[in-house]
C-alpha cells in the first residue's frame, strides 16, 4: 500500500477511535449519538433489512445517472452547435439548479407517485447539470488550430464532433461525471424522504421517528459506500478511456 493511502487510513481510524471514546467516556446514549462500533454492527448484522432499501436507492441513482447522461450529451452538443440555443436555455438550466431540490420534491412525488420514477427524476435533475456544463466547456476549449485543421480537411460538424471535439472534451466529461455521481444520492434520498415505500431515505425517516439513530447512521454508511463505489468506478473508467493523458 502506498504511503498516502496509509496516512488516509490512519486518519480515518483516529477519527473513529476518538468518536468511540467520546461516546463511551461521556456516556452518550445510543439514540443521541451511537458509537462507530454500534453503527458498523447494525450496518453489517441488519444488512438483510437494509440491503433491499439500498438496492432500491442504488437503482434510482443508476437510472438517474443514465438518463442524465443522455440528456447532458444531447443538450451540450446542441448548445455547442447552436450558440443561440445555449443563450436561450442556459438561464433555465441555471434556474433548475438554483431552485432547491427540496422545493420541487413534493411536486414531483405528486406528479410521478411514490414509486421510483420521482426519485430517478430528482437524481437526474441534480446530476445532469455538472455533466452538461463540463461537456460544453470541454467542447468550447478545443484548440483553434485543430479546428482549422479539420475545417481545411473539409470535415463537417459530426465528423469533427466524433474525431475531435468529443475526445477533446472527454477529460471534462469525466470531471463532470465525478461531481454528478458524488451528489447523485442526494436527489434520490430527498425524494425518498418526501414520500416513498422503499429506499435508504425511507428507512432513515422511519428509523429516525423511532429514535433508532444507529439505523439512521447505518443507512448513511451504506449511502457513503454507494457514492464511493460510484466514484471509484468512474475513476477506473476514466483511466481506461483516457489513455493519452498520464
Amino acid at each position, binding site marked *: 500500500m502506498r504511503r498516502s493511502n496509509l496516512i488516509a487510513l490512519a486518519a480515518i481510524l483516529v477519527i473513529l477511535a476518538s468518536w468511540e471514546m467520546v461516546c463511551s467516556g461521556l456516556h452518550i446514549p445510543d439514540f443521541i449519538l451511537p458509537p462507530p462500533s454500534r453503527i458498523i454492527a447494525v450496518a453489517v448484522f441488519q444488512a438483510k433489512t437494509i440491503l433491499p432499501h439500498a438496492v432500491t436507492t442504488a437503482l434510482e441513482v443508476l437510472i438517474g445517472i443514465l438518463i442524465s447522461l443522455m440528456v447532458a450529451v444531447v443538450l451540450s452538443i446542441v448548445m455547442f452547435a447552436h450558440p443561440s440555443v445555449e443563450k436561450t436555455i442556459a438561464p433555465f438550466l441555471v434556474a433548475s439548479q438554483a431552485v432547491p431540490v427540496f422545493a420541487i420534491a413534493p411536486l414531483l412525488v405528486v406528479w410521478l407517485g411514490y414509486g421510483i420514477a420521482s426519485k430517478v427524476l430528482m437524481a437526474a435533475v441534480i446530476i445532469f447539470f455538472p455533466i452538461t456544463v463540463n461537456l460544453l466547456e470541454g467542447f468550447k476549449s478545443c484548440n483553434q488550430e*485543430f479546428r*482549422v485543421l479539420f475545417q481545411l*480537411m*473539409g470535415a463537417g460538424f459530426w465528423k469533427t464532433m466524433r474525431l475531435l471535439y468529443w475526445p477533446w472534451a472527454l477529460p471534462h466529461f469525466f470531471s463532470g461525471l465525478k461531481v454528478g455521481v458524488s451528489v447523485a444520492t442526494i436527489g434520490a434520498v430527498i425524494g425518498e424522504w418526501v414520500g416513498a415505500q422503499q429506499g435508504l431515505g425511507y428507512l432513515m425517516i422511519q428509523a429516525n421517528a423511532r429514535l433508532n439513530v444507529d439505523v439512521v447512521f447505518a443507512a448513511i454508511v451504506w449511502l457513503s459506500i454507494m457514492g464511493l463505489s460510484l466514484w471509484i468506478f468512474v475513476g477506473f473508467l476514466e483511466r481506461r478511456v483516457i489513455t493519452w493523458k498520464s
Partner: protein
Amino acid sequence: MLTVSRLSKCFGELFIFKNFDLELPKNGFTVLIGPSGCGKSTLFNVLSGVVNNDGGEIKWCGESVAHLGGTSAYMQQNDLLLPWFSLIDNALLPAKISGENIDNARMKARSLFKRLDLEGFETYSPAEISGGMRQRCALVRTLMFERELVLLDEPLSALDAITRSSLQSLLVMLQIEFHKTILMITHDIEEALMLADEVLVLSRRPMRILDRFSLRGAKLRRIDDPDLIKIKKYVLNLLQEELDI
C-alpha cells in the same frame, strides 16, 4: 498554377495587406520571408479560407475561386497530431474525413511511413515519439490530403537544428518526388535559400513584396556558396531596415 491579384485583408481600419499580388508556378517552391507580425500567417488564413478576404482575386489553374480550402494542404509549426490516435490513425485522418476507402488509404500511409522513415512506429502514440518524428508524421498526413498545393507555415521552426536539416530534405522531396506546388513561410533566411526556387522578401504591415530572388541549382543548396552569402547579407539588411523604421 496559382495567381493572386490585388488581394486585401483588413481588421477594422488596419490593413494587413492591400492589393497583394502573388504568382506560383506549377511544381514550384516559393518561400515568403519577412519580419514577424507582417501578416504572412494572415495571408495563409485568407488563402485557405479560414478567414474571408476583403477584396481581390484568387485564381487556381485559371479559374477564379473564393479560397483554396479544397485544393490545398496546410502544415504548420505545431504538428497538430491528435493525442488519442496512433500515428497511423493520425495519418489516416484525411481519409476518414473524406470517406474514401480506408484500406487503400492505409496501404498508401504505410508506404509513406516507410518513405519517411517512420516504419515500425505506426501504432505508437504521438506522446511516445520525438518532435522530429511527429513533424514527419504530420508530413505524411499532409501528403495523404492528395492536394496539389501545400502551404507550409514555418513547419520546422519548433525543431532543433539537426532535426530541422533532415526534415528540410524531406520538403525538397515533397516538391521533386511528389510534384507538389509549395508556398512556405519561414523566418530562417538560410532555410529559404536552401529550399526555394523563388524567395519573396516581405515588408512590414501593410505587407508588400520588397524584393524577390530566383534561385537555381540542385537542392538542398549549400549555404556557403558565395552568391547565396551575398543574397543572404542583402536580405538580412533589407529586413533589418524594415524593423528599424
